[in-house]
C-alpha cells in the first residue's frame, strides 16, 4: 500500500482528446457533458468532478489541486476520496496512459495494463468504500444517444421497427453528404449573403401577417382543388427535406457530426423526417446550439421566398393564386409550428439550448411535481429537496411547466372548436369535449400499457429486459464498489506474448495435433503459369503451384496482391489470360457444374439472403443445390451456430456471420473449400473460435485453401503457405521453414530497472540491445545461453521472449511498405 504522501505527490493527467462541454443545468445540478472520442461514450460530470478533471493536466500534484478544491468548495479531499475519484476516472478510461508520478511505476494510474509491473505495488488498490461525497455524478449516457439496441446492430442498414412504427434511413452516408453540401454552399455562408436572406425572410413573415386575409382565402380555395392541393403538398415535402438538410449543414459548419437523416413512422400513419445531430450541447456557444436547432425553420422560409414574388405579381383571380397563396401560408405554418417549444419539435430544442438546460421537459415535470408536493404536504424533506433548486432554475423549470400547460390547453381548445365546427349540430352538446376525452383515453391506455410491460419485465425469471451495455455496465461498476483494480502487480510469465495490441499469437501445440497430409495423393489444384490482367494492371503474373489433397493451404499477401482474383480463377468465375488451371482433375473454365458441386467457396462479402433467419437462409441455399432441407441444420451444427438458427442474418455478430458464411460454403459437403479472408474484421476471440471450426474441417480430410493477410492465422492453421506480392509468387513452404529460412534473432525483454543496456551488451552472444517502452530488448541468436546469463540479473519470471514469426518472414519477403498493418 502507498502512503498518503505518495498519493498526493502524484500528477495524473486526464486524456487530452476528451471533449468536455460547457456548464449545463440538469434540474438543480450543474453538469458538464464529457465525450470519449475513441469509444464514443458520453458521460455527465458534476461540478466538483469537473473542477478536478479540468485541473488534472499532468503538471500539478494532487495536493495542490486538493487545496484549490478546499478553497472552492470548503471541503478537503481525503486519501480515500482521491482514490475513489481516480479509480472512477481510470475505470471510465478518462485518464491518460501514464502519469509522471513520484516514484518509478507508481504513475500507472490508467487502465489495467499487463506490462505495467516491476515497480512498487500498484498505487491504487480499490478501497471498496463509497465516500460520502457521492462520486456518482459521473455516469449515465446522454439521453439523446440512440438506444444501444439500435445503434449496435451489426449492419445498421437493416430496416427496423414493427408494422406501425420504425425508422427508415433515407441517406446511406449522411456525413459524406453533409461534407459535400458544406463545400457546395461555402459561397453562401457569408454575412453578405445570409444577412439579406434573413431580412427577406423577416419581410416575408411581415407581409404574410399583413395580407393574412388574402392568404387564408387562397388556402380555403386550395382546399376545394384536390389536385392542386396535392401538388402544393408535394412541393412542401421538398421543403421538409431541405429543413433536415439545413439542420445537418449548420451542425456540420460548427464541426458537429451528423448521424443520419431518416424517416420515422409513428402509430402507422404519421411519418416525419429527422436529422440526427450528435453533441450539439458540446458547442461552446449557446447561440450556435440554437442556430443548429433553428436552421430548419429558416430553410423552410428561404424555400418559400421564390414563391412570394410570383404570388404577389399574379393578376387578381388568377387560376394559380390558390396554389401559391396556399403554399406560402401552409409552408410558413408548418415551419413556424416547428418552433412550438414542445418535444420533439425544434422549438423545444432551441429553448433548451438557449437556457443551457438538459432534458428540460422531464426536469420541468419533476420540478412541478416536487413543487406541488412541497406546497401540499409541507414535509421537511420535500422542502429540503425543493431548496436544492436555485432561484433561476425554479423560474425556468416552473415557467416551462406553465407554458406546456397553457399550450396543451390552447391546443385542446382549438381542437374542441374545430370539432364543434366539423360535426353536425346534433353533436353540439358533446363535440367540444371530444378531444379532451380522446386525450384522456389515450393517456389511460398508455399508462395501462406501460404498467403491463413493467409487470412482464419483472417476471420471476430474473431478467429485466435487455441491458444497455455501455451506460449500465459503467454504473454497476461504481455501485458494486470493487471494479477492476487499475494497476495491480502481475507476475509476468517468461514467455508472455507482447501486450494486447498485437493479434493473438498461434498456439503451436494446437497445430501439432493435426495430421500431416499424404503428399503422395493426386493434387487438388494445379496452377501453371497463370496470368491475369485488368487493363494495365497485372493482377497475377505467372503464378504456379500445386495444392495437395487434404492439405490446409494458405495464400498470403497484402491487400490487392491478387488473392481474390486467384480464387475466382480457380473456381471458374474468371478466365486466366494465359497458363493452365486444373482443379480436382478438370478445368474450371467455362462454368463447370460438375466441378462446382465439389467446391465450396466463402467470399469476402458474406452472401446472405436478405431478412431471413440463419436456418432459412441455409435451407434456401440447400434447395439451390438441390439438397434436402435437413442439410441446413447439419451445416449449422458443423459451425456451432445451432442456437442462432432463428436469428435474422442481419442481427448476427461478425463472428457468427462468418460462421454462417462458412456453413453456406459447406452445405453441399465439398471436397475442396476456398475461404477468402474468413476472419477479416473479427475480434481475437471470434477468430480463435472460427479457427477451431476450420481445424475440425481439416481433420475430416477436406482440402482447404485459405487466403488471408493475417500472418498468425496462416502460421496457426496452414500446412503450407504461398506468399503473393504484386501478382507474383514470392515464397512457398511450410510456415516453420519460412521462419527458419529467415534466421532472425530471438528477442528477450527485460524490465529496464533490472539491467542496464551496457550490462546486457557485455553478455556473450548478444547481437544488439535496444530500450523500448521501459524494457531492455536483447536480440540474440543464442537465446538459451543469453537467457541463462540474464538470469543472473533478474528473476526468470520477469523476462519475456519473442522468437521470429511468420510475420517477420512475410515482411522480409513482401517488403515492409506493403505490410497491411
Amino acid at each position, binding site marked *: 500500500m502507498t502512503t498518503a504522501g505518495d498519493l498526493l505527490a502524484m500528477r495524473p493527467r486526464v486524456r487530452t482528446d476528451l471533449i468536455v462541454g460547457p456548464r449545463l443545468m440538469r434540474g438543480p445540478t450543474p453538469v458538464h457533458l464529457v465525450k470519449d472520442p475513441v469509444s464514443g461514450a458520453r458521460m455527465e460530470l458534476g461540478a466538483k468532478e469537473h473542477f478536478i478533471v479540468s485541473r488534472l493536466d499532468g503538471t500539478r500534484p494532487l495536493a495542490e489541486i486538493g487545496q484549490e478544491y478546499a478553497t472552492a468548495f470548503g471541503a478537503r479531499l481525503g486519501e480515500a476520496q482521491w482514490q475513489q475519484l481516480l479509480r472512477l476516472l481510470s475505470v471510465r478510461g478518462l485518464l491518460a496512459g501514464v502519469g509522471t508520478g513520484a516514484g518509478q511505476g507508481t504513475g500507472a494510474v490508467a487502465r489495467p495494463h499487463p506490462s505495467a509491473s516491476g515497480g512498487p505495488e500498484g498505487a491504487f488498490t480499490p478501497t471498496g468504500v463509497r465516500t460520502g461525497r457521492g462520486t456518482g455524478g459521473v455516469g449515465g449516457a446522454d439521453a439523446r444517444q440512440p438506444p444501444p439496441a439500435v445503434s449496435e446492430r451489426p449492419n445498421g*442498414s437493416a*430496416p427496423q*421497427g*414493427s*408494422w406501425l412504427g*420504425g425508422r*427508415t434511413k433515407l*441517406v*446511406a452516408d449522411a456525413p459524406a453528404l453533409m461534407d459535400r453540401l458544406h463545400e457546395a454552399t461555402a459561397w453562401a455562408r457569408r454575412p453578405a449573403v445570409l444577412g439579406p436572406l434573413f431580412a427577406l425572410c423577416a419581410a416575408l413573415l411581415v407581409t404574410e401577417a399583413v395580407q393574412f386575409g388574402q392568404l387564408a382565402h387562397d388556402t380555403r380555395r386550395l382546399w376545394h382543388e*384536390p*389536385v392542386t392541393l*396535392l401538388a402544393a403538398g408535394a412541393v412542401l415535402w421538398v421543403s421538409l427535406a431541405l429543413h433536415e438538410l439545413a439542420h445537418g449543414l449548420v451542425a456540420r459548419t460548427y464541426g458537429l457530426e451528423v448521424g443520419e437523416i431518416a424517416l420515422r*413512422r409513428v402509430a*402507422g*400513419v404519421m411519418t416525419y423526417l429527422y436529422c440526427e445531430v450528435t453533441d450539439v450541447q458540446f458547442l461552446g456557444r449557446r447561440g450556435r446550439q440554437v442556430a443548429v436547432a433553428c436552421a430548419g425553420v429558416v430553410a423552410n422560409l428561404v424555400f418559400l421566398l421564390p414563391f412570394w414574388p410570383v404570388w404577389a405579381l399574379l393578376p387578381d383571380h388568377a387560376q394559380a393564386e390558390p396554389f401559391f397563396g396556399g403554399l406560402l401560408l401552409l409552408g410558413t405554418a408548418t415551419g413556424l409550428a416547428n418552433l412550438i417549444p414542445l418535444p420533439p419539435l425544434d422549438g423545444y430544442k432551441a429553448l433548451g439550448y438557449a437556457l443551457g438546460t438538459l432534458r428540460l421537459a422531464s426536469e420541468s415535470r419533476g420540478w412541478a411535481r416536487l413543487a406541488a408536493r412541497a406546497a401540499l404536504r409541507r414535509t421537511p424533506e420535500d422542502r429540503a429537496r425543493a431548496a436544492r433548486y436555485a432561484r433561476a432554475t425554479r423560474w425556468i423549470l416552473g415557467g416551462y411547466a406553465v407554458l406546456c400547460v397553457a399550450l396543451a390547453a390552447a391546443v385542446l381548445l382549438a381542437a374542441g372548436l374545430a370539432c364543434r365546427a366539423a360535426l353536425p349540430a346534433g353533436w353540439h352538446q358533446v363535440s367540444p369535449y371530444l378531444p379532451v376525452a380522446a386525450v384522456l383515453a389515450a393517456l389511460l391506455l398508455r399508462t395501462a400499457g406501460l404498467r403491463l410491460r413493467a409487470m412482464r419485465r419483472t417476471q420471476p425469471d430474473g431478467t429485466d429486459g435487455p441491458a444497455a451495455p455501455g451506460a449500465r455496465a459503467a454504473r454497476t461498476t461504481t455501485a458494486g464498489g470493487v471494479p477492476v483494480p487499475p494497476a495491480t502487480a502481475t507476475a509476468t510469465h517468461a514467455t508472455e506474448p507482447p501486450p494486447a495490441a498485437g493479434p493473438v499469437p498461434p498456439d503451436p501445440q494446437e497445430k501439432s495435433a493435426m495430421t500431416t497430409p499424404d503428399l503422395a495423393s493426386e493434387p487438388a489444384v494445379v496452377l501453371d503459369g497463370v496470368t491475369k490482367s485488368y487493363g494495365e494492371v497485372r493482377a497475377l503474373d505467372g503464378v504456379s503451384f500445386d495444392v495437395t489433397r487434404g492439405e490446409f493451404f494458405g495464400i498470403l499477401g497484402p491487400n490487392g496482391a491478387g488473392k481474390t482474383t486467384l480464387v475466382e480463377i480457380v*473456381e471458374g*468465375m474468371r478466365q486466366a489470360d494465359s497458363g493452365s488451371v486444373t482443379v480436382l482433375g478438370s478445368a474450371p473454365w467455362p*462454368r463447370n*457444374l460438375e466441378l*462446382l*458441386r465439389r*467446391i465450396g*467457396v466463402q*467470399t469476402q*462479402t*458474406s*452472401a*446472405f*439472403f*436478405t*431478412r*431471413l433467419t440463419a436456418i*432459412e*437462409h441455409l*435451407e*434456401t*441455399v*440447400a*434447395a*439451390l*443445390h*438441390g*439438397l*434436402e*432441407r*435437413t442439410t441446413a441444420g447439419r451445416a449449422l451444427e458443423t459451425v456451432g451456430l445451432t442456437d442462432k438458427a432463428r436469428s*435474422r442474418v442481419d442481427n448476427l455478430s461478425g463472428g457468427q456471420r462468418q460462421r454462417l458464411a462458412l456453413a*453456406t460454403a459447406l452445405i453441399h459437403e465439398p471436397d475442396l473449400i476456398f475461404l477468402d479472408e474468413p476472419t477479416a474484421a473479427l475480434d481475437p476471440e471470434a477468430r480463435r473460435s472460427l479457427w477451431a471450426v476450420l481445424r475440425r474441417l481439416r481433420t475430416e480430410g477436406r482440402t482447404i485453401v485459405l487466403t488471408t493477410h493475417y500472418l498468425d492465422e496462416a502460421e496457426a492453421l496452414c500446412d503450407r503457405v504461398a506468399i503473393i506480392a504484386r501478382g507474383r509468387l514470392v515464397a512457398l513452404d511450410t510456415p516453420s521453414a519460412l521462419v527458419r529460412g529467415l534466421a532472425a534473432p530471438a528477442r528477450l525483454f527485460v524490465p529496464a530497472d533490472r539491467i542496464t543496456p551496457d550490462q546486457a551488451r557485455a553478455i556473450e552472444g548478444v547481437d544488439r540491445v535496444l530500450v523500448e517502452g521501459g524494457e531492455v530488448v536483447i536480440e540474440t541468436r543464442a537465446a538459451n545461453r543469453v537467457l541463462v546469463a540474464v538470469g543472473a540479473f533478474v528473476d526468470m519470471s520477469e523476462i519475456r521472449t519473442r522468437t521470429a514469426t511468420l510475420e517477420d518472414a512475410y515482411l522480409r519477403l513482401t517488403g515492409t511498405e506493403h505490410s497491411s498493418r
Partner: protein
Amino acid sequence: MTTTAYAALTRAAWLASVRDRTTVFFTFAFPLVFLLVFGLLFRGQSVDGGLPYINYTAPGVLAWGVGNAALFGPAFAMMHWRRDDILRLVWRTPTPLPTVLASRFAVAVGVGLAQAVLFTAVALLPAFGLHLPGTWPLALPLLVLGVAAFLALGLVVGSLADTPEAVAAIANCVMVPMAFLSGAFYPADLLPGWIRTLSWALPLRYLDHGLTNVLAGRGGLGPLGLDCLGLAAFTALFGIVATRTFRWSNRT
C-alpha cells in the same frame, strides 16, 4: 424432404418482402391513403361525359400501386443480390437464373393480387361507391401482365444501380412522372389531348386504361386485348434490355 429450388426461393423472397416493414407500409398503406383522400374528396362526383370519379381513382391508384411494388421490389433485390454476392452464390449452384427470377415473379404477382383485393374492397365500401361489374375476372390477366412488365423494368433498374439510393432515385424518376402522365392520379379523360397521346408510350397507361375499362364494365374484349398486348410488348422490351444490362457482380 427435398424442396425444389423454385419453392425455396419463392419462400425466401416472400419472407424477405413481408419482413421489410417499410416496404410493406409503402406498398399497401401509401396507395390506400391516396385512395381514401381522392375517394372522399370526389365522393359522388362524376367527370363530365365520363364515369364517376371513383371509377378513375380506384383503378388508377391500383395500377400505380401494383406497378410501383412490382418495380421496386425486384430492383432492390437485384441490386442487393449482386452487391452481396448472392448472384455468385446462385452461379455456383445448378439452379438456373430464370428459376430465381420466376420466384420473384410469383411473389410480385401475389403482392399485386393482394393489393388489388384490398384496394377494390375499400373502394367497394358505400362511402366510396364503386360497383364491380360481373366481368371483373378480366382484370386478372391485366394484373399479371402488368406485374411482368414492371418487374422487367425493375430488373433493368436493379442492374443499372449499384446502391439503394440509386435504385430509389432511378425508380422514382421513372414512376412518378409516369403516374402523372398515365392518369393514375388524375382521370385520363381530363388530360390534355397531346399528353393523352403521349401517354400510350408508357406501360402504366395500358394497365390503367385496361383496369378502368374492366372495373367500369365498358370497352369489351377488343381494347382489353390491345392493352394486354401492349403490356406484353413492354415486358418483352424491358426483358431484352434487362438481359443486356445484367451483371453477375459489381466487380467486373
